[in-house]
């Protein structure tokens, strides 16, 4: 195995960065572009990076990559802003942020939620790049061992989240989740079978998840709020306060365990090609809820839910960069844009790049430390301005958000499919919320359905239906053991807590 840290390359990287102003000048514009695009519903990180990609053609390689990674870092947190303030997960990576972020906003704790989310994002990004700095080469070797079976186990782990999203009625919650999983499998599957498209050509690729999520979570919520004056009903609660945003930051810092767990999940999942931040935030949320002493407070405005989600989705950036640098494989669409930028400068990622240009790799990693720190200051100013949304009367906010969401859903594929999906799912979502079905469970099912089916089919094809195949996959066994251990430890601690509570009740006079 190659050396973990190359000291000479690190010194050379510091030399490159300290001698070149052009590497730094693009960081703040990149962060601002990322924050703005990330906060716009439907405008993905990929789209923001793709729009700016041609500009990088006229830059040197290092400033170009630093500019694009700044956009990546900014957009990673930008998605949390509409998720917290309007229940719109601008990207699938911010789904779990809505679970507690939006209830916090409705309670007038929007400042704290934004501050907590920002701090978790900053620390998550920092942690992921520190880990990337330490393990860029060995991590890539681990990623190569991840096959369909391992991915299937990861997807099943994600599905376990459904159990904690059921709300008051377990049956309704499970039905909502099952409905979501089936919706996620509509279209042509990996084996070429076409189901549930009703003859509509644009359903061949399945139900586009972002418009469906925006409809289920946000548009449905806007219909319900039609008779509400403001997002925050209490007049005093509509304040915009830097002190409260900083209180949210301090809250995040008080839960290093939640951030660390989120970061580790984010880096691990982010490094796996094709999975990334959309699963990482759900897993981190589920694990934090499961291990919390007050799991019932989640989904009702517990800031730990925001911290768990944001630390995971931001840290997945570092994970996907590991695969890009070491293997030349993009972990997701955003890193695919980075790979295109590599190609534009005649550079090919992979083992040869790592061995020959380790100083450049380290320079990019070190500049990302600075990006994460700068994100904190730029992000504070950004969320301070964005929080003014709570002062806009709902009679203006409802049509405006519906129109912006429609434009965003059109922007995904450039046809009416997105807006129509948004509309249909807004009505389904409204009906589900009205009759106490947890729409979050449907969203999780929708996100995981295709991943689950594709990997189940691939595993079946490879194994020929032989269950003993799992014994040949140590990585899958390791993930499975980790999952079982996680559930086992939680069940044991819950059992102990309950036993203690019962004995205390029995001892009471």
């Amino acid at each position, binding site marked *: 195995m190659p050396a973990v840290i190359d000291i000479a390359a690190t010194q050379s990287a510091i030399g490159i960065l300290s001698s070149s102003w052009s590497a730094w000048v693009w960081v703040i514009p990149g962060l601002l572009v990322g924050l703005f*695009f990330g906060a*716009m519903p439907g*405008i993905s990180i990929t*789209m923001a990076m*793709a*729009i700016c990609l041609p500009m990088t053609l006229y830059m040197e390689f290092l400033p170009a990559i630093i500019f694009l990674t700044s956009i990546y870092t900014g957009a990673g947190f930008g998605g949390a802003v509409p998720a917290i303030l309007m229940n719109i997960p601008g990207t699938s990576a911010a789904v779990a942020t809505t679970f507690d972020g939006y209830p916090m906003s409705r309670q007038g704790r929007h400042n704290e939620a934004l501050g907590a989310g920002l701090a978790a994002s900053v620390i998550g990004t920092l942690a992921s790049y520190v880990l990337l700095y330490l393990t860029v080469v060995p991590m890539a070797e681990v990623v190569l061992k991840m096959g369909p079976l391992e991915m299937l186990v990861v997807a099943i782990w994600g599905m376990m989240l459904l159990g904690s999203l059921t709300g008051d*009625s377990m*049956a*309704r919650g*499970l*039905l909502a989740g*099952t*409905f979501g*999983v*089936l919706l996620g*499998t*509509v279209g042509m*599957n990996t*084996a070429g*079978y076409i*189901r*549930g498209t009703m003859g509509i050509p644009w359903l061949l690729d399945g139900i586009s998840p972002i418009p469906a999520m925006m409809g289920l979570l946000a*548009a449905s919520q806007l*219909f*319900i709020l*039609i*008779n509400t004056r403001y997002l925050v009903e209490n007049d005093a609660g509509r304040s915009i306060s830097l002190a409260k945003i900083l209180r949210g930051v301090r809250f995040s810092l008080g839960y290093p365990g939640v951030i660390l767990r989120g970061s580790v999940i984010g880096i691990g999942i982010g490094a796996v090609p094709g999975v990334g931040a959309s699963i990482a935030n759900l897993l981190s949320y589920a694990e934090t809820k499961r291990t919390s002493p007050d799991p019932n407070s989640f989904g009702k405005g517990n800031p730990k839910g925001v911290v768990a989600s944001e630390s995971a989705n931001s840290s997945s950036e570092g994970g996907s960069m590991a695969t890009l640098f070491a293997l030349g494989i993009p972990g997701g669409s955003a890193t695919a844009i980075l790979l295109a930028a590599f190609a534009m400068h005649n550079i090919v990622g992979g083992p040869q790049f790592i061995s020959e240009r380790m100083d450049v790799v380290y320079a990019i990693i070190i500049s990302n430390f600075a990006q994460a720190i700068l994100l904190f200051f730029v992000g504070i100013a950004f969320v301070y301005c964005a929080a003014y949304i709570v002062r806009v009367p*709902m*009679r*203006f906010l*409802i*049509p*405006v958000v*519906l*129109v*912006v969401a*429609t*434009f965003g859903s*059109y*922007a995904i*594929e*450039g*046809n*009416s499919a997105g*807006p*129509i999906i*948004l*509309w249909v799912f*807004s*009505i389904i979502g409204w*009906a*589900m919320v*009205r*009759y106490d*079905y947890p729409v979050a469970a449907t969203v999780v099912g929708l996100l995981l*359905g295709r991943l*689950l*089916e594709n990997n*189940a089919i691939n595993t*079946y094809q490879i194994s020929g239906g032989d269950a003993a195949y799992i014994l040949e996959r140590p990585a899958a066994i390791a993930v499975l053991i980790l999952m079982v251990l996680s559930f086992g430890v939680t069940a044991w601690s819950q059992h102990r807590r309950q036993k203690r509570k019962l004995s205390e009740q029995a001892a009471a006079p």
Partner: protein
Amino acid sequence: MRRSLGFIEVDWGHLLLLLFIGGWILAYLIDTRATSLSVHNLLLVQPTAIIGLILCLIVLPQCFRRAGPARAAASPEGLVTDRRRELGELGKIALLATAFGAFVTSLETVGFDVACWLFTAIGLYICGERRLWLIGLFTTIFTVLLIYGYRAMIPFPFPLSVL
């Protein structure tokens, strides 16, 4: 949306939603089986759909509930007022949802600018804004900013009629 049926109250709205979900799951299962009976086609969909249908049957009794003594004791005037308020709110939501549906389906035919202007104006009115001058002014500024903003940001062209 509850109706008393003798001693049993039926939550018709919930029943309708459950029938929609159950009906869609059943139709999807039939369509999947009609496509192919191969394991590669049914591996996830068939067991999940069967579980979904069983869950629908488990939830079904929750749409019916025995009318309690509190309901019987409630004054008819109070019930009528509640009912009117609920219907008023549902009517507003139905209007907004219909306008939203018309907006998303007409985007490419009437142009994004006209559709956006019309829906925002109608939406503002449905949501309670009654100052027509403000609706006109706000809607125009918002439409212009949105169209030019999105045109600069997204890589796809979108049909316009005026701008």
